[in-house]
């Protein structure tokens, strides 16, 4: 009896841990599955990828030396197709008798010219677009000389728009800024606070960085200058975060009010420094952080984000300091009476939040290759939403770093999915609001031990861990 009770309790705890940590991961997975299904559509291979399939088809059907004509439209992708196909076919030992880039009329002229010249055509390689032209569809009827010519076009296939590589990279790029800031916000919210200033700090960091670059070489600025400018932006934001923390710890201002004030100050500073206008005078190299990509085509910004999340996770889950952060948020008085120095922990958390917002601002400036005082408007709300959706409790004391990443992804996936499925932007805001409310509601219900489910009413905890039954001791 005792054993089954304690096992039950352990199961309950484990279940709760699972749901609070991974419940949202399940939601994310379901969302991805839904949008994959909803955006499933016929995909036509393009460019060189299409050229490869067509070349393989021809190689499988015709002997070497066969004459091939390649037809595509004037689009860039078809251009890639035509050059790609020509190269592949010639490498494969086939003869390319003509390359057509244009419309049906150009194709007709080319065919007529070839027919007049007495050329022999065994195959026509076409893109899905050009393959549908009547002139290519009806070759045997129109050009008896080419009655043997067969039309080869890349086969279309079904694949979700959502899961396309470009789209996924797009989502990743979109969330980087919010996700990075959300790391700092997660720490702040775990301590039971809130940081409303992050949106303004994004703008301030972007302005500071671009301004420093403009004043130190503008478009000719060196890499060192750019790194220095970026670091300066981050450090200033960290200092401002430290100041927020100081007003909260030393003067006991409610975090909401303290950071609301700092939000205004930082935003004002960004406008003053930039004189209200955008700053574009940055070198092309400045965009490498925001737009560049490295190994396997993964953007540098995404790599950086992954590293930050990894470090933050280890910090919160394994380090002494991380434990202190949870303790301060869970019960500051108990933490203090256990010898935790609450004020320095809190101060550090706000400093980190400021620094992360600064980093987010630098990344955003790099993505947009400019700085403007209007950057980051209402970012704080998206960031808080990501943190809350990720399962961090607004009352403090609990939350997981990777939960926040999942939260940010959920919001990004919903937005992206709605874009892909053609939901208009006004409706998107409504849906997003509902999602945030739902997440907060879920958070609150979690604190009620799932009692709302009415499936397993909470047993009296003392019962399950009561003193040993007397019969066993006597």
């Amino acid at each position, binding site marked *: 009896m005792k054993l*089954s*009770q*304690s*096992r*039950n*309790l*352990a199961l309950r*705890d484990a279940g709760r*841990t699972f749901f609070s940590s991974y419940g949202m991961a399940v939601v994310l997975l379901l969302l991805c599955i839904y949008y994959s299904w909803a955006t499933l559509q016929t995909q036509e291979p393009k460019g060189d990828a299409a050229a490869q399939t067509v070349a393989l088809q021809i190689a499988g059907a015709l002997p070497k030396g066969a004459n091939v004509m390649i037809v595509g439209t004037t689009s860039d992708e078809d251009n890639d197709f035509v050059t790609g196909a020509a190269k592949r076919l010639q490498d494969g030992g086939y003869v390319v008798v003509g390359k057509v880039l244009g419309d049906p009329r150009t194709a007709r002229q080319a065919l007529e010219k070839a027919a007049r010249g007495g050329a022999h055509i065994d195959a026509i390689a076409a893109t899905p677009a050009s393959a549908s032209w009547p002139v290519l569809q009806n070759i045997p009827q129109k050009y008896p000389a080419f009655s043997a010519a067969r039309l080869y076009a890349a086969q279309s296939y079904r694949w979700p728009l959502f899961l396309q590589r470009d789209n996924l990279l797009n989502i990743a790029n979109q969330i980087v800024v919010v996700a990075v800031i959300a790391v700092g916000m997660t720490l702040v919210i775990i301590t039971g606070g809130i940081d409303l200033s992050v949106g303004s700090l994004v703008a301030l960091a972007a302005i500071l960085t671009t301004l420093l670059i403009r004043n130190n070489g503008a478009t000719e600025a060196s890499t060192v200058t750019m790194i220095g400018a970026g670091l300066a932006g981050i450090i200033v934001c960290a200092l401002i975060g430290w100041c927020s923390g100081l007003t909260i710890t030393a003067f006991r201002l409610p975090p909401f009010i303290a950071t609301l004030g700092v939000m205004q100050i930082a935003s004002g500073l960004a406008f003053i420094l930039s004189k209200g206008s955008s700053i574009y005078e940055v070198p092309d190299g400045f965009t490498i952080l925001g737009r560049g990509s490295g190994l396997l085509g993964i953007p540098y910004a995404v790599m950086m984000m992954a590293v930050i999340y990894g470090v933050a996770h280890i910090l919160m889950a*394994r*380090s*002494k*300091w991380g*434990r*202190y952060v*949870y*303790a301060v948020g*869970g*019960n500051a*008085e*108990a*933490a*203090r*009476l*256990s*010898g*935790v*120095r609450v004020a320095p922990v809190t101060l550090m958390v706000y400093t980190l939040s400021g620094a992360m917002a600064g980093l987010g601002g630098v990344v955003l400036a790099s993505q947009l290759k400019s700085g403007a005082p209007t950057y980051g408007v209402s970012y704080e709300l998206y960031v808080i939403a990501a943190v809350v959706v990720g399962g961090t409790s607004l009352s403090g*004391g*609990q939350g997981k770093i990777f939960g926040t990443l999942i939260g940010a992804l959920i919001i990004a996936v919903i937005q992206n999915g709605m874009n892909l499925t053609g939901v208009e932007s006004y409706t998107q805001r409504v849906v997003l609001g509902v999602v945030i409310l739902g997440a907060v509601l879920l958070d609150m219900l979690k604190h009620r031990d799932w009692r709302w489910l009415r499936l*397993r*009413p*909470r*047993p*009296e*905890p*003392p*019962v*399950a*861990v*009561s*003193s*040993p*039954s*007397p*019969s066993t*001791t*006597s």
Partner: protein
Amino acid sequence: MTPNPPPLLSMTNIEKSFPGVRAIKHGQLELQAGEVHALLGENGAGKSTLIKVLSGAHQPDSGTLSIDGVPVTVASPFNAQDLGIAVIYQEFNLVPALSARENIFLGQEPGNGPLVSKAQERRLATELFERLDMPLSPETLCRDLSVAQQQVVEIAKALARNARILVMDEPTAALSQREVEKLFAIIRDLRGQGLGIIYVSHRLDEIFAVCDRATIMRDGEYITTHEVRDLSRERIIELMVGRKLESEFPRRHSEIGEARLQVQNLRRGSAVRGVTFELKRGEILGLTGLVGAGRTEVARLLFGADRAEAGRIFLDGRELNVRSPLDAIRAGICLLTEDRKAQGLVLGLSVRENFGLPNLNFFSRLGFVRRLQEKRAFADYTRNLRIKVSNQEQLARNLSGGNQQKVVLAKWLQSNTDIVLVDEPTRGIDVGAKYEIYLLLNELVAQGKSILMISSELPEVLGMSDRILVMHEGRIVGEIEDVESATQEQILGFTVIAQGNTDAPARGGDAGVPYQTETVEPQSRKEPMEVIQ
């Protein structure tokens, strides 16, 4: 006219299970009108579940509940109100920012229509306070009331709802001795007015003082109901625990050595006004007095939780400058706070994390927690202290009071501090677990540590201390060296004399100061004067 009218309330064969737990296997309770009925049992015996069944918070799986012999179903707390059942929980259900009057009538304002008739409410509230013999202005905001006064408001609230069955759950937990007396007078008065009162408490003295009959539960089962006058203290404990306890307080063998902690003229505001004492090696020094006498404040000053305005603290002859709890811990002083949930534990963290919190410097390397080490150390403590946890990751909030206290003890034992300040170490803990806590305290002094034990429970102070200090209004007003022959009256006497000296009316100031409004009559007490001198 039947010779035996049906009982006011009778609960028979109540069963209540939660998934995995049979909270009540067989619950039974019979309450007569005009009776104070004690409901006794250890934590987890099923008392609170039974009360929740009565209050409509839980629905029983089976069994009958009758009022005046008529079987009824208590579908919800609202329903219970209509049936004349009122429960006063340990944590009051009052809105701090509303006045006493508004709280009393909250949700069922008298008068018709949407408008509240303030005059009528005020009249009714004043009547209720008169009935309860409590001179209290109905317009005082609840947050300005003392705990005892808030309790009276709660009782008035129940009476305003025409309650006939009143359940009081640990009503004296936060009251001073004098306030307890006052509450007992009210309870006796209500009994005289024909109410049936169910009284739940861990303090056995109170059972004898105010209750007529007692029902005892153990492990979810009804054990017996007796007239209280037929029971002895030992017998009750035996019935509750299910075995014989040799004594309520274990014997101790420790050698009391030299003075280790010396406190001189410690001051802070009106709470601590010049406290001087010393604590010796291997000694348990009891510190008692009324609630609000400044005992907790002294401990907080020693621990650095608050800053002293004046005074010096010496440890082994070396002066300490304690500015924060961290300083105190480093110097070797720890504090087990009175309020485990608010100050002792981070309820949302696991028990292991709570255990590690003050000891992370020991359990970490290069800033990273060595969890394996921490786990092993905690496993040792769970075994040695017999802490009942399902696993180390169990949240602190899910433990019973006794086990929570053991976790707090474990974390300070691990920190290996020599001076242990304990504030109400057994508050809200059942008899069996109390004994274990006492054993632990004894073991600590046997190791040569020193304990300052703050307690309001006089039997505990007398049973555990080597020496007793009595505080009153921020000063130490008495010291008892010969604990063996000391009595409760002697301790109370110090307070009463001090009360006479400091002259009524008592000042307000620190929270929880009792009897702000009642007039103090030291002479009305029994014969404490003779006992002391």
